[in-house]
């Protein structure tokens, strides 16, 4: 619709209510509005086919028996008069006018000079298009006039509603259960294994060991002296490092709680500790 000089033209019909278009525009008694009204209603048509259909209906005969020649004349007259009134016409109206003028001349020319398709056939096809559009327009009006839900017939105002409580029916087979336990065991075992291999001296045991040894010591002792003797499993270097770290944290913990005091004379020098006299 870019070429439409009447921007309202495309919109106005959309705004019309079904009653508004079905009655006045297409009523057989269109004479009431006279010729003058025709020109003012240029906005009323949605394209040339719409206008042609309206003109066809003004012939006041069955759409199947309209005279194409008369229709063409009416259309051309309409276009001419619109031009005389300096109304700008959309390109599609003018193209339709040119084609209809051609159709008219073809219909009037002697038969033997015609090419394919014959003008009669072209006229018939135009005719059919108008019929199709007319049929749909009538169908729409009849459809809108039916007993419509929410306008003429009504559903129950306050239905209780159907509620479906979905309840899961849990499925599990014996084999799923047993296999799941197998999976748990398999997954658990390596974890256990790794804990055993990475032998550590726990903080708790370090605190117990350091504090009990402090209790019997009379003087400063170096931290390393608190470690278990390097025999049997305690030869493991990993475990010794763990024991040293745990004992160091144990010493800090005992100092924090006021049970021991720490001394170190130089950086990285030996760390000594002794019990705080009660």
């Amino acid at each position: 619709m870019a070429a439409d000089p009447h921007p309202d033209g495309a919109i106005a019909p959309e705004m019309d209510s079904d009653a508004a278009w079905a009655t006045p525009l297409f009523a057989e008694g269109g004479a009431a509005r006279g010729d003058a009204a025709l020109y003012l209603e240029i906005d009323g048509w949605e394209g040339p086919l719409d206008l042609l259909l309206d003109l066809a209906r003004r012939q006041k005969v069955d759409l199947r028996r309209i005279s194409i020649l008369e229709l063409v004349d009416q259309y051309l007259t309409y276009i001419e008069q619109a031009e005389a009134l300096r109304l700008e016409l959309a390109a599609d109206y003018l193209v339709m006018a040119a084609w209809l003028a051609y159709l008219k001349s073809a219909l009037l020319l002697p038969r033997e000079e015609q090419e394919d398709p014959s003008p009669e056939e072209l006229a018939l096809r135009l005719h059919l298009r108008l019929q199709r559009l007319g049929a749909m327009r009538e169908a729409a009006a009849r459809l809108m006039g039916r007993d419509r839900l929410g306008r003429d017939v009504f559903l129950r105002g306050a239905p209780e509603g159907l509620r479906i409580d979905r309840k899961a029916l849990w499925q599990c087979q014996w084999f799923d259960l047993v296999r799941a336990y197998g999976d748990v065991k398999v997954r658990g075992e390596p974890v256990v294994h790794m804990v055993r291999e990475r032998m550590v001296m726990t903080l708790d045991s370090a605190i117990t060991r350091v504090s009990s040894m402090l209790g019997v010591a009379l003087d400063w002792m170096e931290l390393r002296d608190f470690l278990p003797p390097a025999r049997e499993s305690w030869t493991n270097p990993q475990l010794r490092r763990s024991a040293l770290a745990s004992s160091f944290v144990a010493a800090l913990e005992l100092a924090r709680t006021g049970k021991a005091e720490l001394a170190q004379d130089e950086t990285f020098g030996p760390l000594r500790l002794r019990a705080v006299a009660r």
Partner: protein
Amino acid sequence: MTGDGASEDALLRAVEATLFAAEQPMAAQALALHLGMPQSPGAVRTALDALRAHYAGRGIELVERGGLWHFQTAPDLAHLLRREKEEPRRLSRAATEVLAIVAYHEPVSRAEIEAIRGVQTAKGTLDVLMEAGWVRVSGRREVPGRPVIYATTPEFLAHFGLASLKELPGVDELRAAGLLDPVDDDMIEQTLGRDSPPPSGAEPDDAADDTD
């Protein structure tokens, strides 16, 4: 549920109560499922027919629309009820025409709609109909360009009080007159191939191809 009569009556009551309470129209199959007898949609259908007969002529009626059943008020009582209800959405003339074309020609592409109407259809027009729940996209046509095709919905049938599309006003006559024949694809292609509005240049050709 001892005798046949008793069980029939129980089913009748159950179907009546369920449809009465339902917020949406229901198919016989869905009713059978809801009533825990998915194997017997036939019995439910028999009950539905009996109920429809019972309610005929009353202030409420039981109707089937596109295979879905619901209770509604009798149409001749519209004058009593309408005053308090708001009018449903008023459709534009273009929208009513497009709706009629979709209903009578479905499934139909936008180009086919435009070919019948002789004008381009504003995008919003189909949207309005889809928003109203009366038209849906039903797929694509397996032709070059794979255009989207549109069809009506069960809500359309329910709203306009149609048991099926066969009940569309005058549909048999229109079909017999050839006015519902498929729109020719060549014509659509030509229509689509143009920048100008379809009715303009395309018109004569369209009309010519139309009836082939």
